[in-house]
């Protein structure tokens, strides 16, 4: 077991040892540390710290758990001028898996009484599960989507100009090179746009159960008792294939420059290499696909919600609160040891959480800080937070991204069948629909940690502050 040194209530240092180039830093309280301490994810934090050009700490958010290469909940930044690298393992297979939150003018009672009918309507409107989605002529130009992301859909009726201001990077990660997305990836992605996928992806209607910060909530358009739409999905088969295609390339690139990898899934290449440019270009294109995917999912869901509640879509007064990546690597300006530096920040199962005053935030959020959306399990609650200065000082502007798995999928499946989970959810007043009942049992609330614990840690650490808590009424799973 690795030696962890406790710094305060929520900070644990993993001192540099062996081939580690920097210390690791894990954010957790006593409860979460009981899960983390004996998990291989701590070794993964140490592994990340061995990669060339890493600056600051190899960071782990309180929802950290084992992942391929990097732990999920891992954040690391690399300086290109110190031999820094980019690693597909630091982004994950589902490039720009992320969340998107819309506020509406609907209230609890509008949804609660009709929740089963609304759930059916949403499940019909948004393809979920294994396989393709429903084609939409407005998103037929794949190259435009890869290059422009959600921004390429402005004017189609799917995305407005106001929307793109509320998406990380304006809905388009710069530097995308569509030609770097191979035929296989295109084939897998083609037709999947506007679909949820499976696993932990979902869409939800939540009620805003509690507001902690009235001013910030008002800025974000969130009022107690109001209904929100929450979407969790990514770049579908297209992104998975980009990652898979690049792993072999990155393994060879790492070997060519003599990088010793403690884990093959940490395959990487120096940021100035041709291989890194190729990966970053393809990754940005896949990330843009994901922004467009979430936009179309939300568009479909809001249309269905309006119809099911007997309203015109405009009458929902739906407003995009924010859309943010959970799996991404990109260049950002940060301070390292007091010096401004352009670094490649990897967030794998972590959310960007820029603090107040950051120039990249839309004007109406700038004083408050970036909205940080942290989904919990499907039976309990999710949180909206706002980024704090602590994130800028310590975590390259990053926070946790969810509750974090507690039980392996196979173990969760043994606890209860999908049908049983659905029944239990219904007992709690939540209408659940799913493309696959087996994935429902894997996603049972008990399979996850309590997201309130996770959120409590980032708040205590000064990384992000709670704004509101959301509770599910309707859940659609892949």
């Amino acid at each position, binding site marked *: 077991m690795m030696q962890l040194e406790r710094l305060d209530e929520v900070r644990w240092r993993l001192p540099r040892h062996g081939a580690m180039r920097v210390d690791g830093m894990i954010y957790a309280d006593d409860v979460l540390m009981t899960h983390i301490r004996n998990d291989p994810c701590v070794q993964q934090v140490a592994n990340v710290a061995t990669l060339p050009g890493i600056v600051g700490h190899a960071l782990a958010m309180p929802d950290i758990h084992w992942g391929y290469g990097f732990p999920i909940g891992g954040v690391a930044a690399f300086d290109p001028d110190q031999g820094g690298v980019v690693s597909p393992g630091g982004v994950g297979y589902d490039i720009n898996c992320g969340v998107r939150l819309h506020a509406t003018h609907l209230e609890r009672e509008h949804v609660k009484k009709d929740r089963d009918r609304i759930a059916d309507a949403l499940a019909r409107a948004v393809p979920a599960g294994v396989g393709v989605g429903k084609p939409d002529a407005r998103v037929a130009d794949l190259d435009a989507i890869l290059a422009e992301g959600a921004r390429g859909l402005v004017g189609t009726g799917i995305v407005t100009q106001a929307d793109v201001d509320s998406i990380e990077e304006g809905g388009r990660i710069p530097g995308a090179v569509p030609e770097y997305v191979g035929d296989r990836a295109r*084939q897998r992605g083609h037709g999947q746009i506007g679909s949820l996928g499976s696993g932990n992806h979902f869409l939800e209607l939540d009620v805003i159960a509690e507001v902690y910060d009235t001013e910030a909530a008002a800025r974000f358009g969130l009022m107690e008792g109001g209904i929100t739409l929450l979407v969790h999905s990514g770049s579908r088969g297209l992104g998975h294939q980009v990652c898979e295609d690049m792993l072999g390339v990155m393994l060879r690139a790492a070997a060519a420059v003599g990088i010793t990898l403690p884990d093959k899934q940490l395959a990487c290449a120096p940021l100035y290499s041709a291989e890194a440019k190729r990966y970053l270009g393809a990754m940005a294109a896949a990330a843009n696909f994901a922004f467009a995917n979430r936009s179309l999912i939300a568009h479909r869901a809001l249309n269905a919600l309006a119809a099911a509640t007997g309203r015109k879509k405009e009458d929902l007064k739906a407003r995009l609160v924010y859309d943010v990546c959970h799996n991404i690597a990109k260049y950002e300006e940060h301070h390292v040891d007091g010096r401004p530096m352009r670094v490649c920040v990897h967030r794998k199962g972590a959310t960007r959480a820029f603090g107040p005053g950051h120039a990249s935030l839309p004007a109406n959020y700038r004083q408050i800080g970036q909205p940080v959306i942290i989904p919990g399990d499907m039976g309990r609650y999710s949180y909206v937070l706002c980024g704090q200065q602590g994130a800028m000082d310590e975590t390259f502007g990053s926070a946790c991204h969810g509750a974090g798995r507690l039980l392996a999928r196979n173990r969760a499946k043994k606890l209860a069948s999908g049908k049983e989970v659905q029944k239990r959810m219904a007992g709690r007043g939540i209408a659940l629909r799913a493309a696959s009942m*087996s994935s429902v049992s894997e996603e049972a609330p008990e399979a996850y940690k309590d997201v309130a614990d996770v959120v409590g840690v980032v708040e205590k650490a000064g990384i992000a502050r709670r704004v509101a808590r959301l509770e599910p009424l309707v859940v659609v799973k892949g």
Partner: protein
Amino acid sequence: MAEVALIANGCSREAWLRYGADALGADLETTEVFELAAGGEAVNATPRGNDGEARLRPPHLDRAGPLRAYPSATPPAASSATRRLGASFETHETDHTADEGFVVTARSRSDLLCGAAEALAALMVDPPSIELREERVCGIKVEAAELVPDDERLFRWLSEVLYLMDAHRFAIRRVVLLRDDEDGVEGLACGEPLDMDRHAVRGAIKAITYHGMEIERRDDGAWRAQVVVDV
């Protein structure tokens, strides 16, 4: 007496028999095989299946064309208890929190690749729910000078099988290996287009990973591989 015609272009006798017997719903454990012509071109076998005797007729079919012959429109009532000749596999449960994987053991590397492909397919759709209606050619090419270690071969082959399932929505129940040599791996994936209403879909598979990937030839000559996939 049922007859089945199968493609036998270069596929192993074991693979051919397994495929044929499965199509007939025969149990290979009680199958008696006789008369095997050289090169696997003509095989006559007498499997004594659940319903007595059946004859397997070796075929010659154009590989590019559709598979013409199955014994009837009724799919075989195969179950996981059906003994597999050559490749055998089991689903391997891991301690990790976000993955699924499997272990395959087989007599040869070719059978190992075949079994791994079937195990991968079984993670997406429960095999007994898939009918053997169509087949698709699936393969990887290896460049002349390229040195591809066994783990890389397995990784690339499974990626190709996954691509076929995900991009083409093809549910695979059986895989027959046609080639496994210095030029690459090629196989026939047998099954049918994915049908969400009829197939017992377990879930999507995002990707094959290098995590924990192992492939080895043991001292007794048998092959064993371990694969973890991201779901």
